[in-house]
């Protein structure tokens, strides 16, 4: 059963706005990067989807931004509280070959699923480069990234940390230097769209993790569809990870 009540194990709040939370791993299967949990927060009527941002046999990590009533309530939970989750849900970023040149591109809180991807690649010994952009220094969570031998390029909109540029501007420059074989990305829709169009033009395979309002999170309500070249596809079940060419960016 993918429906569990799990205990909150620990929690850290950064800048009053971002939360890293660990809960008991009681999953029946090993979660994959890109997958998410659908959490009943108590703060809103529907559940809230949050990417799995890390995993160990004992605990699951989520990393989220406090946005509205749902995430606010989650941020208030104290250790030991039981939360009601569904998961792991959705598809995941695809497996890759060792020799491939990989870029991980994260915008804002899109870093959450990317953290898990980075963990995996370090574990599997893959080489990769992370491009990570946020609004300001205070929105950067790069200290949550695993230690490792990868390249990391930070940027902020206001230049308060890293380069003063959008992550797409950075990406464009990096592609000129060295074209990656594959890109894994998560972030706001506008950023993913730019990335999707750029990669289509440059003929780079990109996999993006999309967001949408989700009711069931399980593929049964058809509520979370996005337009793709295959017709409407469910972000929760057919995604959240899609190949950039599949999406009709508009």
């Amino acid at each position, binding site marked *: *059963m*993918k*429906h569990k009540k799990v205990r909150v194990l620990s929690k850290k709040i950064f800048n009053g706005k971002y939360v890293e939370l660990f809960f008991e791993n009681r999953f*029946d299967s090993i979660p994959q990067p890109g997958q998410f949990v659908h959490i*009943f927060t108590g703060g*809103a*009527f*529907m*559940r809230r989807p949050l990417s799995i941002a890390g995993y160990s046999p004992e605990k699951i990590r989520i990393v989220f931004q406090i946005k509205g009533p749902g995430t606010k309530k989650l941020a208030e939970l104290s250790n030991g509280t039981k939360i*009601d989750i*569904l998961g792991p849900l959705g598809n995941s970023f695809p497996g890759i070959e060792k020799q491939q040149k990989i870029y991980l591109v994260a915008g804002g809180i899109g870093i959450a699923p990317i953290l898990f991807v980075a963990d995996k690649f370090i574990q599997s010994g893959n080489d990769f480069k992370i491009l990570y952009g946020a609004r300001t220094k205070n929105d950067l969570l790069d200290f949550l990234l695993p230690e490792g031998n990868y390249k990391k390029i930070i940027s902020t909109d206001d230049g308060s940390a890293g380069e003063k540029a959008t992550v797409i501007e950075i990406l464009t420059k990096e592609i000129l230097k060295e074209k990656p074989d594959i890109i894994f990305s998560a972030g706001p829709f506008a950023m993913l769209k730019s990335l999707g169009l750029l990669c289509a033009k440059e003929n780079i395979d990109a996999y993006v993790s999309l967001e*949408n*309002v*989700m*009711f*069931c999170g*399980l*593929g*049964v*309500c*058809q*509520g*979370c*569809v*996005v*337009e793709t070249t295959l*017709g*409407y596809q469910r972000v929760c079940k057919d995604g959240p990870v899609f190949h950039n060419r599949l999406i009709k960016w508009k």
Partner: protein
Amino acid sequence: MKKLQIKLSKLKLDTPVLPASGTFGYGDELIDIIDYQYIGAIITKTLTWKENAGNPPPRIWEFQNGLMNSIGLQNIGVRRFYEEKLEILRNLNKTLIVSIGGKNQDDIFKSIEFLSNKKGIDALELNLSCPNIETNKTIAENPDFTFKMLKEARRLTNKVLIAKLSPNVTDICEVGLAAEQAGADILSAVNTFKGLYYDWNREKMYAGGVSGPMIFPMALRMVFELYRKVSIPIIGLGGINSGQKALEMIFSGASAVGIGTSLVIMPDLASRVCQVILDYLNKTRKNFYSVIGSRNEKKH
């Protein structure tokens, strides 16, 4: 759980707790989410004759105590359902209700005819009331239209026929009676309430159907009114989110209950509802049938 096995018209249900069409996929997708022993039957999302893309997103809007949807009957169509799904569902060994709808009557009749001779389907639920398909009146908003639809459906099939009613009517009893007189075996009440949502970011109004706990008092009232007038059994649904509310629906006159929105949000709700009903039966030493309509009275 044995105590909750009931007959609804000719249908054998493992429990009187049913999922609601459109919130349970094609019926097999929630196997690793919900314990199927607690649900009385499987019910598919509404199928149309042809595969249907549904409405453009967004499709879901949230309220404090419910939500609005405008899925627009996205589905794979009756034929693909038959080819890809029926076998799997049959193997689940549960009573199977297939929901049928569409934009025009002919398509609905084609679907009924097609499914009529398929083994493993125990009942057809006619979604007369989907408010998202036609902008104007739907079948369930007009008793004559409903009568004609059911009459023809009855001619076309021997399967148990369920007529699913819309709450967006002046008098649901008129429509329910029309369905009964035309030969419906069971009524299902109610579908979603017509609603509107303003999205401040997109600066746009969205129309859809409202469901969830916020509609419960209205749905309860409609089942109550129906029970007084019709003789066939009623599946009561609309906003049920607890065992207590399920019992209230049964007290009002429902012979079984449907749960859509809240079962999706709380997948263990079916088991909790069953437990509450069982506890009530044990405590009051009543059998299930005697509880149906027990706080209401037939008026005919």
